[in-house]
């Protein structure tokens, strides 16, 4: 048993692995059915908390604090020695739960990787080195002579990032193939020379996380195969119901099928666009009416949203054609654009019924020249955003509150505030999905109609 006292001794490698497991093989442990479910629920609370934090655009330091708090609140066990077991068991139960579809795997992979990232960051350097060795990432540190030869460049990189301490000869750097640290390359956070990236000790988390992610991604595919071939049937009275119920409570509703308000027709779009579209969609809608054209990103974002709102395929074709044919002619519309609309509705190609974009997806898109998609709170300049909010009739004071959220990169909170200002009623759940904005708005408008009418 390990006793955690105020004076922690320098942890040796074997202790390290116990406190932050890499989940490489399922544990040979016995678990009661009750713990099986309870542990999984506790871990889900952590992952859900992480998901919320990410969608609010929390900064790395804030995320670190959040993860540490979530972990303490949910993953403690009355017996300290059981804590690691709880960690491992809950992870493997959720693997079963979230291996079953592409969307579930994606969500789980992303949240578990984030969890691992921040838990890793909270470890000391020695522990981190030991974990690198566990992953077979035993790169040699850059020698002093080599450090001196590239020092200028390393200093430039450090200076180009705010808050990064300037490197000195006593710091450890690793030279690794650039392919192994994609996120550091993408953010220009490393110096790269002839195919090698110089990774500082406080950046090795990227290296380890890439590895963790790729291992887990492969493992989820295998688990899925195993689940369908050998677990689901034999366990259909015992584990299967638990597993199948666990994932539904936390992924949020699926907006690929319009539900509450059924269908809308072309004639109604104009009116509901004004009353119930979130700013991102209203903007695309107006641009489409103005230019009779939208680039690919805009067509996808608005097209799938309209599908979620309840526009049927035939109406969608008519709607887009009415606009596009004014610019490119109806023949070119049929030839070049109609396919992708049918595609969105699962009538072409892979025949996948595509889901409308969530806020997270819209926020993380990268609109370029000529593009009008994306999240206005994130992608508009301050001036343009103010103008757009003004057009919605948002009061001066509310605009200032929205801008304040935007400056702190809380784009979804900014959207929630806009919702409240426009509808004059509160939005406690926050906005997570453009289609949720729409349906919440419709609910409010209908109840207003009912009370006045």
């Amino acid at each position, binding site marked *: 048993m390990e006793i955690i006292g105020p004076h922690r001794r320098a942890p040796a490698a074997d202790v390290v692995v116990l406190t932050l497991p890499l989940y490489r093989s399922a544990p040979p442990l016995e678990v009661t059915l009750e713990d099986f479910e309870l542990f999984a629920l506790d871990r889900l609370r952590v992952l859900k908390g992480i998901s919320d934090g990410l969608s609010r655009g929390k900064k790395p330091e804030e995320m670190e604090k959040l993860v540490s708090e979530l972990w303490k609140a949910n993953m403690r066990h009355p017996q300290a020695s059981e804590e690691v077991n709880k960690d491992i068991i809950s992870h493997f139960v959720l693997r079963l739960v979230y291996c079953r579809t592409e969307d579930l795997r994606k969500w789980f992979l992303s949240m578990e990787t984030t969890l691992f990232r921040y838990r890793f960051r909270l470890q000391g350097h020695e522990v981190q080195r030991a974990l690198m060795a566990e992953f077979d990432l035993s790169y040699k540190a850059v020698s002093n002579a080599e450090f001196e030869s590239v020092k200028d*460049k390393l200093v*430039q*990189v450090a*200076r*180009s*990032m*705010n808050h990064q301490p300037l490197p000195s000869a006593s710091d450890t750097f690793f030279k690794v193939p*650039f*392919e192994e640290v*994609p*996120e550091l*390359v*993408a*953010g*220009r956070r490393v*110096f*790269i*020379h*002839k*195919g*090698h990236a110089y990774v500082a000790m406080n950046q090795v988390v990227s290296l380890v996380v890439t590895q963790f992610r790729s291992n887990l991604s492969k493992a989820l595919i295998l688990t899925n195969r195993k689940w369908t071939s050998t677990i689901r049937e034999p366990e259909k009275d015992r584990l299967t119901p638990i597993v199948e119920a666990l994932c539904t409570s936390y992924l949020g509703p699926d907006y690929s099928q319009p539900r509450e308000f059924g269908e809308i027709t072309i004639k109604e779009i104009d009116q509901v666009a004004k009353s119930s579209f979130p700013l991102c969609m209203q*903007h695309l809608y107006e*641009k489409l009416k103005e230019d009779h054209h939208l680039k690919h990103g805009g067509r996808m974002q608005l097209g799938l949203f309209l599908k979620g709102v309840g526009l049927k395929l035939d109406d969608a074709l008519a709607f887009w054609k009415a606009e596009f044919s004014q610019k490119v002619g109806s023949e070119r519309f049929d*030839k070049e654009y109609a396919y992708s609309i049918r595609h969105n509705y699962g009538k072409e190609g*892979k025949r996948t019924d595509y889901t409308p974009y969530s806020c997270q997806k819209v926020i993380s898109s*990268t*609109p*370029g*020249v*000529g*593009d*009008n998609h*994306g999240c*206005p709170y994130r*992608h*508009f*300049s301050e*001036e*343009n955003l103010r103008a757009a909010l003004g057009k919605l009739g948002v009061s001066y004071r509310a605009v200032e509150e929205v801008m304040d959220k935007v400056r702190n990169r809380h784009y979804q909170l900014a959207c929630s505030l806009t919702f409240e200002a426009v509808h004059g009623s509160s939005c406690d759940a926050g906005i997570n999905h453009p289609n949720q904005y729409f349906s919440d708005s419709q609910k409010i408008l209908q109840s207003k109609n009912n009370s006045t009418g």
Partner: protein
Amino acid sequence: MTREEVENGRDDMLIDGCEAEQRLGNAVPDGFNVNYLKVYYGKLFPHGDIFKWMSYGNDGKHPACDQSYFGRREFSFTLDNDIYLRFQSFNSVSELENSIKEKCPFKIDIGPVYSVEPAKRNAYTPDKVIPVERELVFDIDITDYDDVRYCCSGADVCLDCWPLMTVAIKVIDTALRDDFGFNHILWVYSGRRGVHCWVCDGKARRLTDEQRAAIADYFRLYKGNENNNKKVSLVGHALHPFLIRSYTEVLRYFFEEKLLCSQKIFSTEERFEKILEMIPDESITSELRGKWQENRRSSISKDDINVVRWEQLKHMLQSKKQKAQGLRMCVEEIVFSYSYPRLDMEVSKRMNHLLKAPFCVHPKTGRVCVPIDPNCCEEFDPTTVPTLSKLLEELNMGGLRADVDNEWDRTSLGKSVRFFRSSFLQPLLKSCKEEMESSYNSKLQQSKNSLSW
């Protein structure tokens, strides 16, 4: 205008053809049509070189050769009338050549190497048909620079705006070689308004989508969209070494020596206002504005007005630099905004994106997509590349000859094909062979070792 009509009108084309026959001599009228293209594919298009390239040494006799390699590559043809044939694949150079001659595609696109022959993909379940290799590619299109070029817009290019492409080639090519360590890089004129880049090292072909996206993001600086004026934002106290090098070695020179005057960046109020918008200091902008509006009335200076105003702006920003934080990078931001490469990110990010093959003829311009030598890309002139009609004229000049293999040799295409071979194909195939040999030997060694145990 007349060219446009000729392109669109089938009847005009026929009349053109008759005229050609009536004319004496070797002159071939401008334009693009199936008959011209047939001759081009029959006598000039370097089928064999494309095959050699796309085989990457696997067409040899070495025991390590993968004979199925070329056959798993996707080609896609765009025929007359926009008929689009995807997933074409061929098992030999003669299959490729015969199909091109027979179908006479207006455009040939090259896709990835799949796990199975694309032509037979329907015989497999979708999860067995996956892209396994693909060159790292870049697509740069001058229409994406429309907000910073005043000479042309849309699909037009001229020698005043082409330097933007020269800058892009220099910046990207240097980074691919020096930073990422790639060696086998082919630059190609896209036939009308941009350039394509093919990175063909084995290491590049095997990059995952995530790694491709990371490289594309490494190059991404331009963040502007339709709703945000700030095109480039250089945060931090300093620039990343890659950006410093691009700035000092390429951008500053091209901006000050070429673009400033050729694009007349400061010549009108509308244009200089766009630059003043990028300076976040009211006192500076109003002082400069005052000077320039006055200066318009009494301009007797011999120096170019753009140069004068740029020097004034630089002087003022530099003298006030210490006072205001936000002004630190202002000069650089302006230069980057007006000259830094703008990539079509999606093309680079994903393995299964198609890209037009070199040596195709652009249907709208009749120009051949010839390779560009990055070492002297300043000399490349898009308006003088070989056109279909010019090549046919040159063929006619030589009179009828018995079928010889290298008919391109006596046309102006000869230079391009020779460059393609000597500067790209030969060094590439040499290193493919070396790579093959060394991986074969190490495999041999391994099996020997395992036998001796």
